[in-house]
């Protein structure tokens, strides 16, 4: 995968799942009629015996994936992030409660999903999955990182939720990137402020940092690809260094990355924070970049918010 080639994280999911299927015969895929959108279909075309269509029945998909996992299979179950929520109680009571080895992927997360509108734009999924004991919660920032995650999850024994996206972004990681679950990735060194970001907002935050530099503000930009278990050490360290903490997510500011960071800091190093994200409002139909502008998630908005925040302190 070339650097700077624009690809959505869901593309990384589909590509990696197929490659994984070739080398690991225990991997199976369960689908709820969205394999063409989630890109799980690539696996299905090559391994039809190991691809299980469950129809538009997300609860059944999760239940079946769980049943497969107890026989030693390694199931990857995917649908839109929002529709995975329909099966949340199945995830809670079968997968998480029993610590089962089921890899759930929620695609088309965030308002970046665009034209489908608010019914499809999951902005609460991180909040609910984070609240489940035993659940690992991941969000890749580019297709390459997503590929690495898919492979890492095959070696990880336990429940996981990975959040991927519809929109194409440049690949910012190099081919030799080593994904380390649970470790935050410092993408940009700074001094005055730290922006903890995840997913698409990593890109927006990097661009914002460039805008901020012209204003004399040097920002750390950190890729929090593992929202649970979160890298507490790094968060505390950078909070101490900057005393200006900002979070950025394509998710409600309630319950997601911002809340996770606040939980860590409030008990270890309380400091005033700014949470950038959906301000407890639903999205709407529109082009992804238009929506980001309108709802304050684009690089320009982030830069403005950070500037305001830093000046106030």
């Amino acid at each position, binding site marked *: 995968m070339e650097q700077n080639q624009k690809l959505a994280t869901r593309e990384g999911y589909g590509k990696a799942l197929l490659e994984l299927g070739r080398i690991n015969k225990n991997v199976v895929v369960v689908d709820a009629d969205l394999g063409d959108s989630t890109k799980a279909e690539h696996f299905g075309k090559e391994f039809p015996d190991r691809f299980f269509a469950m*129809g538009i029945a997300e609860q059944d998909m999760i*239940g079946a994936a769980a*049943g497969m996992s107890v026989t030693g299979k390694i199931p990857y179950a995917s649908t839109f992030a929002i529709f995975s929520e329909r099966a949340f109680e199945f995830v809670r009571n*079968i997968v998480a409660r029993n610590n089962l080895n089921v890899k759930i992927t929620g695609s088309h997360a965030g308002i970046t999903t665009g034209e489908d509108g608010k019914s499809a734009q999951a902005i609460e999924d991180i909040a609910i999955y984070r609240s489940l004991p035993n659940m690992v919660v991941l969000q890749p920032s580019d297709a390459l990182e997503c590929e690495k995650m898919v492979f890492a999850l095959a070696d990880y024994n336990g429940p996981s939720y990975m959040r991927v996206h519809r929109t194409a972004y440049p690949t910012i990681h190099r081919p030799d990137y080593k994904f380390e679950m649970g470790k935050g990735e410092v993408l940009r060194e700074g001094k005055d402020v730290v922006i903890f970001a995840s997913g698409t907002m990593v890109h927006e935050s990097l661009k914002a940092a460039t805008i901020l530099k012209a204003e004399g503000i040097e920002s750390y930009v950190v890729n929090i690809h593992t929202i649970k278990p979160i890298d507490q050490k790094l968060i505390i360290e950078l909070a101490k260094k900057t005393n200006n903490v900002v979070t950025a997510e394509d998710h409600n500011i309630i319950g997601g990355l911002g809340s996770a960071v606040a939980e860590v800091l409030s008990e270890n190093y309380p400091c005033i924070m700014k949470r950038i994200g959906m301000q407890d409002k639903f999205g709407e139909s529109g082009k992804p970049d238009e929506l980001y502008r309108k709802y304050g998630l684009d690089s320009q908005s982030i830069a403005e918010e950070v500037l305001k925040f830093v000046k106030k302190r």
Partner: protein
Amino acid sequence: MPKKDFVLGLKQKAKEFRKEIIEAVYKAQSGHPGGSLSEIDVLTALYFHKLKIDPSNPNWEGRDRFVLSKGHASPGLYVVLADKGYFPKSELEGFRKINRMLQGHPELSTPGVDFAGGSLGQGISFAVGIALALRLDKKISKVYVMIGDGESQEGSVWEASMAAAFHKLDNLVGILDKNQVQETGKTKDVMDIGNVVLKWQAFGWNVIEINGHDMNEVVEALDKASKNKNGKPTMIISNTIKGKGVSFMELNYKFHGKAPNEEEYKKAMEDIEKIDVNKFK
């Protein structure tokens, strides 16, 4: 007709199990007696006649699996597993107690438990997943799943039923413990599930209908279902009576999830003791 003595043996076991169910729920002062009493004859036949299992090797990969989807009726499962030797009978008096093995609803950590129930409507999906995986690995073992009639109000039961037929899972056998009563009343008064024979036939399953307290019928149905190879899953509609065997619990929704007090306990044990296994059905 199955061998007379053998069936008599199962009936006697089921009678003993009824006592143990009442005992466990009484000691815990908590639990679900009604649904445990209605299912126990089928569970006895499953574990002492049908299932290919090995209590000394609970995780044996070649075993048949049993999914108790109506997980609240755990006492029924626990007394059977204890008698099979998965764990000591002394665990039964610790049912629902803190730091003890036998949790209110079954957990995978308990030897012999293949499904962690408690939330209705999930078992058939889980069983479908197992059945798909077993077939993928060309294993000959089967999956049995028991659901309740109240439970059949959950839409997810029908998602899974559709999937089981679509995926031609003839290594899957369902049992509907149709005990006619749920938590807040008779199922036909709360949310009538209608004609379940027609429903499951329409969903593409083979359907066998029996009196779930007639051990001969239970054994015959399980044998027939387990031999099926026609590319369809089988649903055994087991017509039962909630609380069967205890006069004041029969068809009484109050004992869906309530333990007997001391007086009720004594009466219940007397009722069960009086059961004539030759006439019981």
